[in-house]
C-alpha cells in the first residue's frame, strides 16, 4: 500500500514552522547539505533576490520609546507576580496540584485573547500563493484555521517546492520579554480535540536547545484528520515524535525532552491545492500510564563513517 502524503513530507520537508524557515532547502545549496560547496551558511532564511544582511550587530538594535508607561506597568506587574507566585507553588499553581496532576489543558480557545498566543503563516513569506487565516469559531469557543493552498513554487530560481501553512504558538514570555519554557515532564501524551477536513497535518514541537546548530530542531509527528462533523480526539505519545532540522529528518534521533518545551505548531503541506480548514478545541497533556515506550525509533548509529 502506498504511503500517505504526510509520510513523505517527513522526509522531504517538515514544514517551516516559523516564517523565517524555508520549506525546503533551496536548490542553490544542493539537494543535501553534504553536497553543497557554500562557505557561509546563513542563519536565517534569506529570500532569493534580496541582498544579504551586512549590518553590524550594533546597527540591528533599535530602541523603542513608544511602548511607554503601559509597557512598564505590564512588565513590573509580571515581575511582581513572579515573586508572589513562588509562595503558592511553581508557576503560581499549588504545589500539590503540580505534583499530582495527571492532565493539564495547555491551550484552550475560549475568547479572542487566546488567538494572540498563536502565529499563522503561509508560504507568502517565500513568495508563494497560499493563504491562511485564523478566527474564532462559533460562540468564541474554538480556533478555526482556514485558507487555501497553492503549490506553484515562487519564481525565484531557487525554491523548488511550495504550498504550506502553519499555525505556531508563541514562546511564553516572562517579565521584560524574557523567554520562558513549558515544563511537561510529568506527562507523556499530547491530547488534542480537533475537527479537520480529512487532510493530513503535522504536529511540531520545538524544545529549548543549547547549541546554535540546533536552533531549527523540531520534533514532529503526523496528525491525520478524519473529516466530518464530529470532533476527533487525537492522542500522540511524545515517544513517537521524530527529530528533524530545517525540514530534513535527521539520522541521529533522540527522544524529545519535555522539561523545556518552547512551542507547538501545526502545519499542512500535502500537495493538494485548494481550501483547507482545521478547528481546534483544546490542546492538553496527559499521562498515559499504559504507554511505557521511551522512544519509537532506533538510537544506534545507523550511518557509520566510511
Amino acid at each position, binding site marked *: *500500500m*502506498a*504511503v*500517505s*502524503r*504526510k*509520510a*513523505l513530507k*517527513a*522526509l*522531504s520537508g517538515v514544514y517551516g514552522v516559523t516564517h523565517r524557515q524555508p520549506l525546503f532547502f533551496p536548490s542553490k545549496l*544542493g*539537494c*543535501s547539505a*553534504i*553536497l553543497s*560547496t557554500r562557505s557561509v551558511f546563513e542563519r536565517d532564511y534569506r529570500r532569493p533576490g534580496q541582498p544579504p544582511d551586512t549590518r553590524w550587530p550594533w546597527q540591528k538594535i533599535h530602541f523603542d520609546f513608544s511602548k511607554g508607561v503601559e509597557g512598564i506597568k505590564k512588565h513590573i506587574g509580571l515581575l511582581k507576580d513572579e515573586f508572589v507566585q513562588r509562595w503558592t507553588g511553581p508557576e503560581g499553581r499549588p504545589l500539590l496540584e503540580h505534583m*499530582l496532576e*495527571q*492532565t493539564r*489543558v495547555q491551550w*484552550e480557545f*475560549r475568547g479572542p485573547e487566546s488567538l494572540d498566543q498563536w502565529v499563522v503563516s503561509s508560504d507568502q513569506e517565500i513568495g508563494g500563493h497560499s493563504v491562511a487565516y485564523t478566527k474564532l*469559531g*462559533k*460562540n468564541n*469557543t*474554538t480556533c*478555526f484555521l*482556514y485558507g487555501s493552498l497553492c503549490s506553484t513554487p515562487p519564481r525565484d530560481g531557487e525554491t523548488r517546492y511550495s504550498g504550506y501553512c502553519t499555525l505556531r504558538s508563541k514562546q511564553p514570555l516572562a517579565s521584560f520579554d524574557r523567554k520562558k519554557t513549558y515544563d511537561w515532564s510529568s506527562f507523556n501524551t499530547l491530547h488534542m480535540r480537533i475537527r479537520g*477536513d*480529512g487532510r*493530513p497535518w503535522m504536529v511540531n514541537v520545538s524544545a529549548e536547545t543549547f547549541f546554535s546548530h540546533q536552533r531549527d530542531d523540531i520534533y514532529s509527528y*503526523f496528525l*491525520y484528520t*478524519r*473529516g*466530518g*462533523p*464530529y*470532533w476527533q480526539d487525537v492522542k500522540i505519545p511524545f515517544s513517537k515524535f521524530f527529530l528533524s532540522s530545517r525540514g530534513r*529528518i535527521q*539520522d541521529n534521533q533522540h527522544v524529545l525532552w519535555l522539561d523545556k518545551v518552547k512551542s507547538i505548531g501545526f502545519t499542512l503541506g*500535502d*500537495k*493538494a491545492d*485548494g*481550501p*483547507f*480548514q482545521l*478547528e481546534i*478545541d*483544546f490542546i492538553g497533556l*496527559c499521562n498515559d*500510564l499504559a504507554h511505557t515506550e521511551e522512544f*519509537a*525509533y532506533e538510537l544506534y548509529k*545507523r*550511518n557509520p563513517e*566510511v
Partner: protein
Amino acid sequence: MPEFGVERDIAIYNKLLDVFPKEVFVPQNFIQRMFNHYPRQQECGVQLLEQMENYGITPNVETKVLLAQIFGEKSHPMRKYQRIMYWFPRFKHTNPFPVPHVLPSDPVELARFSLTRIADDPDAKVTIYQYPSTDITETGQEVTRPHILGIQSPDQRSLLAKHNPCRPVYVEGPFPLWLRKTCVHYFLLKADPIPPEEKVEEDFDRELIGPEQSLFYPQRVELDLERDIGDDESFSVDDVEEGLVYAMCMAGQGDQATLSQWISGLQETCPILGQIPTVFRLESGPRELQTSSDAQQTPEQEVEIDQIIEDEPQRSQRVNQ
C-alpha cells in the same frame, strides 16, 4: 513525469537510473572517496530519489542494485536510499483513516466511501435515494438527476424521534472533505443546541434497573473499575456546546431541490420530520460548522417559524432562508 502520468511507476525510475553509466562514478581509491567523487552526478541521483520519495514510492531491490553499480556503496544516493528504506516502512501505516490511492471513479461509490468514513458509527446505514440519470422530457430538454446518498445510524434515528417539533432542524452545507487530492462536499441535518433553560433531564428507564434495586442506594454507580481512585484522566475544559447531527448526505448538486428530495426520502424512516420545520442554510463556499444561528439570521427565522407552525403539520414544510 506527471505529464506522462508515470510518476508512480517504480519501473520508470529504475529505467531512468539505468541511463547512468555503471562503474564510472564508483570511487577507486581513498583520495576519490575522500573528496566528493563526481558531485553533480551524485546530486542528480539524489534528486531522482527525492522525487520518488515525494510521490511516496518505495524503491525496490533493483534500485539498490543499480545504485550500488553506478555510485558505489557509500555514495550519497546510496545513503539516501538507505534513509528512505529506514523511514518509509515506519510511516506507511500510521494513518488510522487510510484513503486508498485509487479512489472509486463512480460518484455513488465515492460518496458511499466518504459517508462511511465520516460517520462515526459502524452501525450507520447508507441509503441511496437517487441514482444519477439523464432524462429527456417531452420538450426535448435534458434533465439530469444527480445522485443522492444519505447515511444515518440507529442512534441518530432515535434522537431524531425525540426531537421537539417546535424547534426547527437545519440542513447545512456544503462542508468539504478531502480524500488525498479530491475534495467532496457533504450536507448535514442538524439541530441547534438546546439552551440550558429548556434542557430536560431524562429519567432513566425503570426497566433497566432490576426490581432488587434499593431506594436508599444510588441507582447508578459511576465506578470505573479499571482506574485507581485518585486517577482522573478528564480534562478541565467545558465541552463545546454543539447541536446534534441527525443525518448526513452527499449529492451531486447542492441545491435546495436535491436536498428536499433527500429530506423526503429520510421522512420514510423518520416520520417525525413531517412535523418539524426544516430550514436550509446553504452557502456556496466551504465554511465552518455553525450551530448557533448568527445574530442577523435569528429574527428572520423566528418570523418564518411562526408562519410554519400555523400551517398544517402533515406535510414536511421547507422554508427558504
